[in-house]
């Protein structure tokens, strides 16, 4: 049976680079996949490109490639990455320049574009009658925010990845390729799977398994419930998955790397951000995460296999996830620390004082939140009652306003609220930021024509 190894080398931006280098050097993984995009990263990169046309891709990919290309020269693994962000063409240009002065000739790059839509295109589609209902809030159409739009991008699937690999690409680079497709693409290409009924079960298995790899070291004991048992997390290994033509696979990591690969560290990620476990909707197929089982079969070795005969996947959806980013006011933030022994009472006084100051300066923010670090900043109303006297508490003011001036004035008043505290209060650095909000919706596949361009380092 044919088997193919793919390593999950990045969970976002920023992330550790050394696990990817280690996989390239010490493992026989045929594919290295890099997800660099969180939900909002694209909007940030779009705004960068708007200011400077030669930017808009993930900057870290250049130092990463500088280390990987010499290793590639020896081992000839393939790389799939969405680091192109809002500017895959410029990113490829920089990598070609880099390869040239490293004397690496013949390196072939497949550049995928078409995932980001110009705002005018969105307005055209809206005029044509597509409402773009908000998946989160159910708001029926985008008319309320259509004039504040700054970016619009589609989570595209693996179609062009397969095409690029077919034409001999060594690196496939794109923008908003879905994290999942970075792994499903190569497996479909290698095993000759098609987007047809005979393959949905296996594509579903790949979709579920890819979910365990797209967050890199998060499946190998980082940010884990088992943090006390994880050895040497400071050089955690990246997960390497060997999948067979039947869709079953084995996940390991490089021998001697830090971190931990166990059924329950993978389980931790399988339950992460899945929503409806039987309908894990991805561009290439709908996975059923309840149709697979995880078994420890050796140190840092876990088998993933089919559970019973329920199909592991269903046909891919006719629509794609479509994200619109729009401007939505400003948030200013400020932290001060009040001392014990009555830290909680003192913190409450500062909060009361702050709200009075807002009245005095006649400021009505859209929203304000005062929380106490060391008590309820993370847990809000669910925090257990304080049954001890904390040495100190962080008092965090967060204020949302329409304009930057209001954000600054609100933060100034928060700064002055430490006067109401007792002696021994200190303060941290304040910050203001423009709020980019996300409008998640769906777009019919046929409205998103993607393009592939092949280039070679000569």
């Amino acid at each position, binding site marked *: 049976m044919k088997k193919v190894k793919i390593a999950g080398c990045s969970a976002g931006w920023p992330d550790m680079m050394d696990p990817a280098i280690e996989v390239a050097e010490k493992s026989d993984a045929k594919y290295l996949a890099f997800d660099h995009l969180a939900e909002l990263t694209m909007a940030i990169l779009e705004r960068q490109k708007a200011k400077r046309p030669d930017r808009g891709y993930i900057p870290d990919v250049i130092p990463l490639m500088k280390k990987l290309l010499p290793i590639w020269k020896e081992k000839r693994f393939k790389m799939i990455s969405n680091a192109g962000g809002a500017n895959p063409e410029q990113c490829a240009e920089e990598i070609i320049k880099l390869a040239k002065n490293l004397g690496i000739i013949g390196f072939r790059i497949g550049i995928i574009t078409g995932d980001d839509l110009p705002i005018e295109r969105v307005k055209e589609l809206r005029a044509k009658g597509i409402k773009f209902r908000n998946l989160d809030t159910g708001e029926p159409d985008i008319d309320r925010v259509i004039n504040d739009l700054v970016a619009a991008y589609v989570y595209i699937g693996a179609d062009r990845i397969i095409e690029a690999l077919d034409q001999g690409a060594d690196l496939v680079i794109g923008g908003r390729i879905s994290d999942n497709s970075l792994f499903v693409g190569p497996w479909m290409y290698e095993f000759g799977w098609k987007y047809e009924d005979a393959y949905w079960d296996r594509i579903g298995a790949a979709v579920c398994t890819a979910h365990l790899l797209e967050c890199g070291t998060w499946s190998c004991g980082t940010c884990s419930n088992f943090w006390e048992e994880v050895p040497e997390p400071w050089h955690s290994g990246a997960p390497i998955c060997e999948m067979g033509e039947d869709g079953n696979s084995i996940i390991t990591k490089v021998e001697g790397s830090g971190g931990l690969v166990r059924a329950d560290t993978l389980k931790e990620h399988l339950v992460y951000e899945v929503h409806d476990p039987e309908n894990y909707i991805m561009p290439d197929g709908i996975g059923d995460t309840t149709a697979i089982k995880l078994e420890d079969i050796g140190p840092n070795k876990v088998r993933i296999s089919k559970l019973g005969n329920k199909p592991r996947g269903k046909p891919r959806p006719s629509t794609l996830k479509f994200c619109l980013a729009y401007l939505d006011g400003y948030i200013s933030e400020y932290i001060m*620390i009040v001392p014990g022994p009555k830290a909680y009472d003192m913190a409450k006084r500062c909060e009361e004082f702050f709200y009075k100051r807002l009245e005095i300066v006649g400021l009505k923010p859209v929203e304000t939140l005062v929380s106490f670090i060391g008590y309820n900043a993370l847990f809000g109303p669910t925090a257990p009652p304080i049954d001890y006297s904390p040495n100190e508490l962080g008092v965090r003011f967060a204020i949302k306003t329409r304009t930057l001036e209001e954000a600054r004035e609100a933060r100034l008043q928060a700064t002055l609220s430490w006067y109401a505290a007792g*002696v021994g209060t*200190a303060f941290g650095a304040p910050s203001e930021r423009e709020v980019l909000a996300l409008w998640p919706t769906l777009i019919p596949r046929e409205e998103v024509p993607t393009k592939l361009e092949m280039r070679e380092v000569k």
Partner: protein
Amino acid sequence: MKKVRLRDICWYRSGDKGDISNIGLMAKNEKIYQIIKRQVTPEKVKAHFKDWVKGEVIIYPMDNLLALEIVMYQALGGGATKTLRIDQTGKAMGNALAWMEVEVPDDFVVPK
């Protein structure tokens, strides 16, 4: 004798000047002032702050205010602009000192 913490028998406020931390320790009454004047010594203060106070400690009594002016050199990690501490200007050093314990007679009553 029994032990009480300075925070129960004194008020305090601290500030900075460059890398010098300066604590005003105010006794709540005359009797307490005599106790802190005797027991709050440069050596004890320096030991209390461990590696946070690297330089000399000088203490000036202020009989008129029943207070001790405690001056601690190289005490703020380099001073407001250089220190890595979140309390850049040493506003809480008084509170920190207030954890220190002193000995008082067994019949001593902690003032409200």
